[in-house]
């Protein structure tokens, strides 16, 4: 099954289900090392499910997922994460009763070295000074946008090889949204591979190398960012 692949991440023909309901049908995509790839589609198309399938939160029934030469579709989520795949989940999923500091620390759970943790935390504070102000506030009492920053910060603490972001700009003030896209670019420049799900298709396609369009559980279009942005269908469906 795991034929040698040259892509960093390769998703082959996966079908995913929520008990009986099929959410993905033969989804096929790949990401090369160092790329920013975006996945766009309307509500309920299956974007989040695709991310969850890769991270191991949803186990695909059929198909394979190969990451860095390894078949991971049967991995438990924590194993996948240990390989260096991080996910900023939809709806933020902050640990509500852990403090901001703890939420960040737990992002670096697999890191032993205290200095490294401190370093990364400083960097997150650089991006989001608000978090530094609120180190001891419980995650659950932060405002929506603050939580979103925390969720992104938490994922950055892991310093993953592949970062998957599920609608990172949701709930953020415009000024912060701009900043988020800057951070993504910056991370990418430092060598992190990015899979980005965004409703803000315009901005996503602008920074993406390539993009996929997903519709009712299947990929219907793909191409590089500019192509997709010019595509009539895409414009009609996703870009107002």
């Amino acid at each position: 099954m795991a034929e040698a692949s040259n892509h960093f991440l390769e998703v082959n023909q996966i079908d995913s289900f929520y008990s009986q309901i099929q959410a993905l049908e033969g989804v096929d995509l790949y990401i090369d090392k160092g790329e920013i790839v975006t996945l766009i589609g309307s509500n309920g198309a299956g974007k989040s499910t695709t991310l969850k399938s890769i991270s191991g939160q949803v186990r695909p029934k059929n198909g394979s997922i190969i990451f860095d030469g390894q078949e991971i579709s049967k991995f438990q989520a924590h194993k996948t994460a240990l390989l260096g795949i991080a996910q900023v989940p939809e709806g933020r999923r902050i640990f509500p009763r852990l403090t901001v500091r703890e939420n960040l620390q737990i992002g670096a759970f697999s890191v032993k070295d205290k200095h490294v943790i401190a370093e990364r935390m400083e960097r997150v504070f650089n991006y989001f000074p608000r978090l530094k102000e609120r180190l001891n506030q419980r995650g659950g009492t932060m405002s929506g946008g603050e939580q979103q920053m925390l969720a992104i910060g938490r994922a950055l603490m892991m310093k993953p090889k592949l970062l998957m972001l599920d609608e990172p700009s949701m709930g953020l003030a415009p000024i912060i949204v701009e900043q988020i896209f800057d951070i993504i670019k910056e991370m990418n420049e430092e060598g992190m591979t990015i899979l980005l799900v965004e409703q803000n298709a315009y901005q996503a396609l602008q920074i993406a190398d390539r993009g996929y369009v997903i519709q009712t559980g299947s990929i219907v279009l793909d191409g590089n960012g500019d192509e997709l942005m010019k595509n009539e269908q895409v414009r009609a469906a996703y870009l107002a």
Partner: protein
Amino acid sequence: MLAHIIQNLPQVLIDGLTLGVVYAVVAIGYTMVYGILELINFAHGDVFMTGAFIGAIVLFLLMGMGFLAALPAILVFIIVIVIAAIATGLLGVGIERVAYRPLRKKNAPKLIALITSIGISFVLEDLVRFIAELKTGNYIVTAPPMFNHKFTLNLHSALPFFNNATFQSSFLLVLIVTIIMLIALDLFVNKTKWGMAMRAVAQDRDTASLMTINVNRVISVTFFIGSALGGATGVLFMIQYGTIDPYIGFILGIKAFTAAVLGGIGNIRGAMFGGVMLGLLEMFAASNLSIITHGAMGAEYKDVFAFIILILVLIFKPEGLFGKAVVEKV
């Protein structure tokens, strides 16, 4: 009236403390499992009971081999408690594997685990009873007496408004061992990464696993520690009271669970405090209720008294004494 109550106070405190620390450690087992799975682990009381029996078996074996006479009592005690703790720890892990993990995998509703835990509780009670009965013909087992040196606190001569109080050396043992266990646990949970992982798993399992946390492992470890503490407490209980039967876990379980809630469930220090407080309350009620009510209500109302205090506490502090009010962000 007041004079009577005060006279007896030292004795009540000693007895209450003994029972209270036992409640406290068992309560911690509840709190840990509850904290991580939000499951009221009905089987926990029976794990405690099993620990007591395993301790008794080991003690009898040692006695049979003549070690009891040959070794210093404290060493025998350490051997017994360590073996019992490890065995019950593993038992706890096994229970989790068999009865709870499959449910998690199937995304079952939270409460269904209540059923398996009740099932496990019946099974443990009967299995232990069968084994005890096969071996001794009677399921009520009395362990060889240990640490039963009697001390008398000569308070009366110094402070005439107190009566003298008595206790056995086992009381000191129970107190010291539980305190050691409690401190060790507190450090473990609050100062190591495991503690944070446990809390994270408790709050959001899916997301915790995204953070490279092996959720099943964390849960297993939690069960191991909680059950081992319970089992070790079983041994203490056996030594303190001498007699055990397969049903001790049931009543003690309810009390310990109550204590856990009193302190604020999910909170380890709260469980300790709740346990001690419940023990004291009960003992106080048993020895003073009829004095206070002039015989209208006797010691038989001690549990009513304890539960009413609990309910009052929860009315005024719904999250328990040590629990932090979780203000939900809306």
